């Protein structure tokens, strides 16, 4: 079971994402932004950070990196893809997920442990959770406000494609308290908070994030 983790110039969380994949008994494979080859991986994580310095817009440059061409193609064939934080922004820019992420409503960079509710447990990345489970994982972003036009929001809500929702005070002005969404087929998921930082009580606020990576392994094993 191979899970690829992409590194762009400015990526920060590739090491933790690879560690999370290994915790879930997958083999973590490093993927380089300039390399179109996905090296036979079964799933891809687009990790957090500040790819290309967030120039132009968060994720706008990374979306055109050679590796993303292959990721978009693979996602079209059903490969599970997870975007975390900047990775979520990149997947939105790439059109794999609807909507966009904008500057936090209060303009402050938010860095805290955040409660989320898992709203959809049928995606390739959330099957290990109980419906409605509340999980505590770190949120650290300055442009985490999820926005989409009203018809898109209505569609996402109607189809159950809101995967994670902030519990308690909305940290960034996201519409409908949305922290994460999924593609129509449930294979591509993006979220602003960082499950890869919450896989071991030694180094995170909980191990609540681990279920995401186990879910992907389950999805790949079942396939």
């Amino acid at each position, binding site marked *: 079971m191979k899970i690829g983790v992409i590194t762009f110039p400015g990526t920060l969380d590739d090491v933790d994402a690879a560690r999370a994949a290994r915790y879930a008994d997958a083999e973590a494979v490093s993927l380089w932004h300039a390399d179109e080859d996905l090296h036979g991986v079964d799933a891809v994580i687009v990790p957090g950070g500040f790819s290309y310095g967030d120039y*132009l*817009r968060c994720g*706008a440059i990374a979306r*055109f990196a050679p590796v993303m061409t292959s990721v978009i193609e693979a996602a079209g064939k059903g490969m599970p893809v997870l975007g975390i934080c900047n990775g979520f922004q990149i997947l*939105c*820019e790439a059109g794999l997920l*609807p*909507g*966009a992420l*904008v*500057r*936090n*409503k*209060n*303009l402050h960079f938010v860095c805290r442990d955040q409660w989320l509710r898992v709203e959809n447990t049928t995606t390739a990345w959330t099957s290990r959770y109980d419906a409605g489970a509340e999980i505590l994982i770190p949120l650290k972003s300055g442009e985490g*406000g999820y*926005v*989409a*036009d009203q018809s898109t929001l209505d569609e996402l809500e109607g189809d159950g494609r809101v995967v994670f929702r902030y519990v308690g005070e909305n940290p960034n*002005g996201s519409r409908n308290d949305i922290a994460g969404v999924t593609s129509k087929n449930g294979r591509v998921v993006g979220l602003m908070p960082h499950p890869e930082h919450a896989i071991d009580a030694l180094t995170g606020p909980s191990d609540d994030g681990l279920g995401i990576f186990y879910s992907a392994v389950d999805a790949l094993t079942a396939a």
Partner: protein
Amino acid sequence: MARVVVDVMPKPEILDPQGQAVAGALPRLGFTGVTEVRQGKHFELEVDDSVDDETLAKIAEGFLANPVIEEWTVRRLA
């Protein structure tokens, strides 16, 4: 050669906290009467004659702006 200006602005319905912060600062600085500020991006491109309007629109729509949250205008400077 021609100079082309692309202006990118957040859509009216998109919250613009940066513009609001600027608007909020103005009265504190003694400037009254400014009721709203919207903040966007301004690009200046030097292009040769082979770049037609259709190409410029593709550049603006597909890269310089994110049509989910932003609208754009292209104009050629004389």
